[in-house]
């Protein structure tokens, strides 16, 4: 028998270390982008780390649980256990990356850690998460599928189709919305007639909960509860994590569309500080943890930049099985 994950200081320390890894890795990725080492686009989750680590701690890929996430997915990938090496190499399009350089920032996959993918078409992965859950239901495997999406996804048809299907078939899915208040550059309030994503659950007859997305403990508790319910045959539930990205939508977006003072207000609720304070860590202890995380990121980066580009012969490999 597997032991269900429990919330204790050991798990909190692990989540804190993961959040620091994510934070510094994301900051480093921004610089790599500016230096031209990361091409295309990249979407950082700085400020939203607690959602990733709390949710990842509540699923059990070793029991077959699967996770499908948005293109703002570096944090979730790391929280699930993808190595910094694999992530950074992929972001630079190197052979040693999680997808051999074929996917990039928006298309991360790590089957060994339960990550079926990060998806770059908004809302498209919710039906696929329902399908993974259908598979678990038919096989009676007890596995649960976690779909992580932004507030922008809930106005997409695929989202509604999938939530309806999951509800009507009672599929073991956990629907986790990271509501960071903006769909790209547009405030959620301008695109939704109801104030909360959670309000929409009523239409599908599934339970919903609004959670403080800056608090890793709360995230873990809520997702673990929804995972348990799904595993026991209770069907899907919707969790809305209220959170905030401390950076723009992508690349060089300065996020000037946000009202003055909003970022500063949310920075007061930095998920790393909240968890460090719950662990009663001193400033110097936290600083030590930070230094260790920076060193982990730098060391992984040193490895990743030395990885070769994928050979041109691999260009057409992996199109068909």
């Amino acid at each position, binding site marked *: 028998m597997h032991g269900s994950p429990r919330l204790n200081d050991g798990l909190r320390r692990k989540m804190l270390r993961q959040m620091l890894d994510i934070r510094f890795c994301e900051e480093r990725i921004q610089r790599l982008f500016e230096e031209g080492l990361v091409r295309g686009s990249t979407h950082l989750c700085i400020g939203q780390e607690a959602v990733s680590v709390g949710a990842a701690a509540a699923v059990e890929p070793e029991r077959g649980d699967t996770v499908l996430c948005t293109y703002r997915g570096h944090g979730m990938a790391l929280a699930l256990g993808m190595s910094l090496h694999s992530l950074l190499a992929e972001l630079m399009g190197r052979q040693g990356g999680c997808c051999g350089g074929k996917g990039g920032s928006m298309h991360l996959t790590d*089957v060994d850690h339960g990550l*079926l993918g990060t998806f770059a078409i908004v809302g498209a992965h919710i039906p*696929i998460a329902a*399908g993974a859950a259908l598979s678990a239901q038919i096989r009676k495997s007890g596995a649960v599928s976690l779909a992580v999406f932004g507030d922008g996804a809930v106005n997409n048809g695929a989202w509604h189709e999938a939530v309806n299907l999951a509800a009507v078939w009672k599929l073991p899915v956990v629907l986790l919305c990271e509501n960071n208040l903006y769909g790209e550059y547009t405030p959620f309030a301008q695109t939704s007639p109801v104030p909360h994503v959670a309000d929409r659950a009523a239409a599908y007859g599934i339970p919903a909960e609004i959670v403080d997305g800056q608090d890793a403990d709360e995230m873990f508790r809520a997702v673990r509860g929804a995972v348990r319910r799904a595993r026991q045959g209770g069907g899907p539930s919707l969790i809305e994590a209220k959170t905030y990205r401390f950076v723009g939508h992508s690349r060089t977006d300065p996020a000037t569309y946000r009202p003055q003072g909003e970022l500063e207000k949310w920075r007061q609720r930095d998920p790393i500080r909240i968890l460090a304070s719950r662990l009663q860590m001193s400033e110097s202890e936290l600083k030590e943890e930070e230094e260790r995380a920076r060193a982990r990121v730098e060391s992984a980066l040193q490895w990743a930049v030395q990885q070769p580009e994928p050979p041109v012969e691999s260009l057409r490999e*992996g199109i*068909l099985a």
Partner: protein
Amino acid sequence: MSEMTCRDAVIRALTEEMERDESVILLGEDVAAAGGVFKATAGLLERFGPDRVRDTPISEAAIIGAGIGAALTGMRPVVELMFADFAAVALDQIVNEAAKLRYMSGGRLKVPMVIRAAQGAGGGFAAQHSQCVETLFMHYAGLKVAAPGTPADVLGLLKTAIRDDNPVIFLEHKMLYNLKGDVPDGEHLVPFGKARIAREGRDVTIVASQKMLGPASEAAERLDAEGISCEIIDPRTFAPLDFETIGRSLEKTGRLVTVEEAVRPCGWGAEIVSHLCEEGFWWLDAPVRRVTMGESIIPFSQSLEDALMPGVDDVIAAVHALA
């Protein structure tokens, strides 16, 4: 050999594969209790139960997406889109997700899924329920596309499609469900990428598929009486497409006509013609001819639909133009 319809061939293929492999499941609108709007899944709910044969809401994106998710996690779903035109509602799931997940993941994922749909005109279903869509899906790497025109090929290709580890678009022609033909007894598998020579001949190569095999065959009969011998090639699968068999026929005949039940721009006939102009130009003794619907939308009225559909006279005229 025994005689059966294309519809019964679909049912037999699904039954045999579901018996053989319990990871094969069916999802779609009215596929279970009603046995499908074309009755091509009749009896499967009773035989395999509601876990494996499921009616879905009218939610095409969710149906395809659920198939993808199930395929990624060890199942072999056969999902039905009812009318092939409805693929447009779920196009993202098909062309951006199913087709690309394997490549984007660096080969870590696979999507062993079959998307069945009924296509084709001739039944008065009008503009949104009559289109042939094989050409659309040929344009996306990562998909396989089959369009069988006989009961034996329906059986053999559908069984092969279900065993394939890739997403397969499996297009059944709605006007051929009642078509009867001989089907081998016992295990019958037809490989993808292998065209069928439907009729042997020496003077002209005619490439035709599904319902267009009818007018092509009748035209060949009449032309035979004139002393023109036509070879008819049925591609059976469009991705992969068997250029080799078509090329070998052209090498023999020196003349090429394609007959497509679709609009003209960018049709599969154009792909075959351009390929053979590059690879087999010196085999050509005459210009090539494409028989198509031209540029149009499929009308409702029978007189208009009949006028639009390529017919025997169109094929004969195309062949005469090469003489």
